């Protein structure tokens, strides 16, 4: 049982890393698409000879991304009732992620006995926020006629697992570790430093279950919206509003893409020719030539 927990845990970390990297590579290698942005205000096209003007302001884009993620501000503006629970949940999750980072660092950097209870409050508050938010989301997904529409069964299970994960984590800290920061830090330290292998192989149920649940979320991560958001913002920062400049890298990419062959079956498309050919060699029946001349 003990070694299974260890294998599942490290396995899930590996899976998560590999999954994320594979998805990233797949996405980055995908061909660049035609220009297809939308704007929240004025753009460069308001200027005459826009191609001679400064194109993208990366800093503006980065700023907007950070605000989106930190505040979920699009939801705030467009769907306030949903935002209220969604935000509680996300705030909780963000704080929990930070808490784990702190926990791992503190376990090796701080003398456990001197750890203050502030850490405990932080962890519990974050868990409570995530729990209340998550429960709120689940309730809304069950009761709200709009939010339950199209919501697939799998995702209800997801929320139940999420709430259980949070509850169990609270139980482990509060009752198994007796709400003692020093005990918790010592435990984490042995984990991080691989100190007590014996303990690792025979974990107590409270921590074993926590590790197993964490593994589930690690396996889920590469398929979750977190990954998709990452890809979306990556795309936004790297591709949006990037013009095709003569002799530039974009033109190079496009030239390659125009060489791909087309296999669409409709009669107006020549099968088997390249994009470039299909676009320039218009089939006879389409271009009877200058009919009016």
């Amino acid at each position, binding site marked *: 049982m003990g070694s299974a927990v260890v294998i599942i845990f490290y396995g899930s970390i590996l899976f998560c890393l590999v999954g994320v990297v594979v998805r990233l590579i797949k996405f980055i290698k995908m061909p*660049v698409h035609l220009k297809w942005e939308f704007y929240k205000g004025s753009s460069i096209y308001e200027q005459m000879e826009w191609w001679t003007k400064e194109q993208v302001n990366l800093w503006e884009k980065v700023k907007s991304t950070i605000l989106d993620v930190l505040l979920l501000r699009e939801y705030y503006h467009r769907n306030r009732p949903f935002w209220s629970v969604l935000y509680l949940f996300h705030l909780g999750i963000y704080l929990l992620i930070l808490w784990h980072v702190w926990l791992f660092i503190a376990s090796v950097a701080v003398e456990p006995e001197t750890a203050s209870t502030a850490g405990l409050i932080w962890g519990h508050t974050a868990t409570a926020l995530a729990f209340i938010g998550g429960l709120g989301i689940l309730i809304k997904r069950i009761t709200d006629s709009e939010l339950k529409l199209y919501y697939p069964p799998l995702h209800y299970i997801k929320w139940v697992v999420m709430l259980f994960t949070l509850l169990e984590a609270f139980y482990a800290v509060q009752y198994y570790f007796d709400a003692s920061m020093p005990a918790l830090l010592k435990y984490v330290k042995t984990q991080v430093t691989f100190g007590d292998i014996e303990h690792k192989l025979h974990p107590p149920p409270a921590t074993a279950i926590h590790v197993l649940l964490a593994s589930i979320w690690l396996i889920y991560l590469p398929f979750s919206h977190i990954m998709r958001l990452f890809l979306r913002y990556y795309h936004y920062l790297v591709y949006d509003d990037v013009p095709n400049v003569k002799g530039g890298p974009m033109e190079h990419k496009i030239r390659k893409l125009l060489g791909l062959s087309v296999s669409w079956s409709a009669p107006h498309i020549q099968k088997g020719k390249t994009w470039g050919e299909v676009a320039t060699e218009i089939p006879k029946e389409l271009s009877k030539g200058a009919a009016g001349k």
Partner: protein
Amino acid sequence: MKRIKVSDISKNNEEQLLHIKEEELMQLPYIGEAENKGEPVKPLTEKQQAGFEHSLDGVSACTIPKPKDKEEEERFVRSFLEGLKKLISEKDNWTFLQQLLLSLDSCAKCQTCNDACSIYLGSGKQDIYRPTYRSEVLRRIVNKYIKKGGKIFAKLTGSDVDLNWATIARLAELAYRCTMCRRCAASCPLGCDNGLITHELRKLFSEEMGIAAKELHDLGTVQQLKVGASTGITPPAFKDIVQFMEEEIEEKTGKKIKIPVDKKGADILLIHNSGEYLSWLENPEAFAIIFEEAGISWTLSSELYGYEGTNYGVWYDDIQFSRVALKHIEIARKLNVKKIVVGECGHATKALVVIADRILVDDMNFPRESALPLLYDLVCNGKLKLDPTRNNFPVTLHDPCNMVRLMGIVEPQREVLRKICPDFREMEPHGVDNYCCGGGSGFAIMQSMNFPDWRSAVSGRMKMKQILEAFSDVISPEHKKYVCAPCSNCKGQIRELFNYYNVNEKYGIYYGGLVELIVNAMVDIEKPFIEWDWH
């Protein structure tokens, strides 16, 4: 109101999912019983019903003939699946693959975007018109029929759409119930672009199955590539029109203008939507007057493809789109002009300036821009002598989605109006938050069976409401009012809307472009350029 589930689309029968009823549509101010013609959308005749698919909402935009036998049904399904595979392949669909996959993947089912959709709201919130409905159908088909293990996990993932003839035929029609204004995309917190999914569906139907609205393909891009313009105007006919324009300009303004045609080496090649030459000649005339007054070096082209700015390919078919865009560039290169300027036409501007950007390489990557910044420069930097009091009537501005939300050209046109129209008022919402006129993505030119009724009753309903509200303080017909719509397709739609609701006669509301207002304010022209005759 009857609720319609996503899986209802695969009911393999002829039962209509939605019956559009007047009492369920969004309420309009001022429009009373008289204008509401009882049945908002005429039912199809029995013959039409027998021949064509109409089981979505009783409307036929694509005139899809009913299958003759089982075998034909099966071929239809196979062909769709083939197309779907190509749609998600790099080779066949590199043009939008990345965006499509991201949009298929990223919907959180929060339904936030629905409230952004003028068609959904206009219809009185009918389920099938949700921006999410169409996408969810496609998503469930992909999850079930394309993804590995899709059928096994179908229950868990809620992928309950079955593929059969009716599903696909309804989906094809449904791809023509969205104007691709992408207001929903702009409102999605997760970046899911349901407008793009409409685009991709139309593409699958056109590029694989040869299904498209006739006005976009046969009478649109195919006709354009054949005779030079989707309006059917040929080069000799175009030259006659130019001569007529010169005569009319002289008659209206006393100005003797020689409109430059095929002038090699001019700074600007101006391309209009050729619909202007047929329906609103005053618009290209006004451009000519302004450009000549400002001493601009410019030209029109009378060459095949050179006098038609439209590119309907942008609405349904990447290949037709590319073909037309390349023709436009070739013309400009041949004339050796410095840049192409696209007149008041939203989709033509976006197609050539923005979307084509990533198919043009080497010398084909030719400078292109919208006319609006130039007009701003002429008006706001004092290059024309203008007297705003000549435009002393209420004016509101319709923002063409293609130029405003989808290109970010927001201010130039409003700056011009603020300068030359003392009673300019915004409609709400406006700018990048504008609602589509309801004629976007080709709707304005689509005339199939009862589709025009649907276009006015449902898809343009929100715009009608906005316009009426913008003029609520001057609603009586003795106040002549002007809706400025700097886009040919929007104008076409607004004309149809005004006819349908009879608002020109009852409320004295007219419509037209931006340049007409500029010329109307020119001090050296005696008679008003805007003649207030309904056309």
